[in-house]
């Protein structure tokens, strides 16, 4: 049985080993970029069916961002939306036969978590300057400085281990059941995996959003809640 912590190397470019997860990641990036380009090529004031579906997606994202954090969604829409869509497609790529989801590998999740870590710093500096970002470590009082620094590292680590553990264990269990039982038996588990993948992508995006705005509100006196909850969902 192959270890879930190892990655299979496909080929080598110079000194860099290209693993299977990286090739899958490239394919997902390509699909997302080309799809986004093709779908938004001809936008109109009177939306077609395709544009209405896209607008529904973007509005849902905006509503989620606003309701989670109370901030205006515009500066975060790109990053959080891309994060959510990429993780969702990566998690669900395990449905295609022969493809391991790249999020079931340590390095992909680590890269995503590092992105979140950097974006927290980036948005905090954008909002309050370097001084504001540094001062945010001293809230509520300077005694908390080492704890705050430790927290900013451990929460990124826990994000990455959470995504890895969930996706990897789903793929691993399917592999074990398929090797024990047979062809059609793992299908209910794969359906469960779909749900887990969606929930994990959602949680990753929401947590990234929460971390970003928590650093923001400590740094600036006025959080940017200009259009708070533009529309309410009736459910």
């Amino acid at each position, binding site marked *: 049985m192959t270890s879930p912590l190892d990655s299979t190397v496909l080929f080598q470019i110079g000194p860099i080993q290209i693993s299977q997860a990286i090739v899958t990641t490239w394919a997902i990036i390509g699909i997302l970029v080309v799809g986004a380009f093709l779908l938004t090529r001809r936008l109109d004031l009177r939306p077609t069916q395709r544009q209405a579906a896209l607008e529904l997606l973007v509005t849902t994202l905006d509503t989620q961002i606003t309701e989670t954090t109370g901030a205006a969604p515009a500066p975060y829409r790109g990053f959080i939306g891309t994060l959510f869509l990429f993780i969702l497609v990566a998690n669900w790529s395990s449905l295609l036969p022969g493809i391991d989801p790249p999020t079931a590998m340590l390095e992909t999740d680590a890269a995503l978590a590092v992105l979140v870590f950097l974006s927290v710093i980036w948005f905090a500096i954008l909002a309050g300057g370097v001084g504001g970002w540094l001062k945010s470590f001293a809230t509520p009082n300077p005694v908390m400085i080492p704890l705050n620094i430790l927290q900013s590292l451990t929460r990124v680590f826990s994000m990455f281990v959470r995504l*890895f*553990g969930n996706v990897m264990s789903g793929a691993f269990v399917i592999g074990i059941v398929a090797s024990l039982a047979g062809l059609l038996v793992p299908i209910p588990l794969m359906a469960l995996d779909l749900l887990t993948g969606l929930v*994990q992508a959602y*949680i990753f995006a929401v*947590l990234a959003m929460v971390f970003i705005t928590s650093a923001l509100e400590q740094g600036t006196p006025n959080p940017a809640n200009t259009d708070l909850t533009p529309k309410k969902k009736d459910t």
Partner: protein
Amino acid sequence: MEYIAITSIFCATFAVAFGAIGPAIAEGRAVAAAMEAIARQPDAANSISRTLFVGLAMIETTAIYCLVIALLLIFANPFLV
């Protein structure tokens, strides 16, 4: 050599078994509390369930740490090689 392998397998099993107890109880309590809150205030179901999901993810992390430790013991044990 064999003792290390045996101990690693036992410890991996115990890590997952006992590490799952705490998060299971905690998640049960969290879901029960959220159910009660939704029953009392159905209007707030959206925000309650969103907070619930994030909280569940946080609780679940401890169980996943145990899983990762178990995997390390079995697949990447530095004392076994």
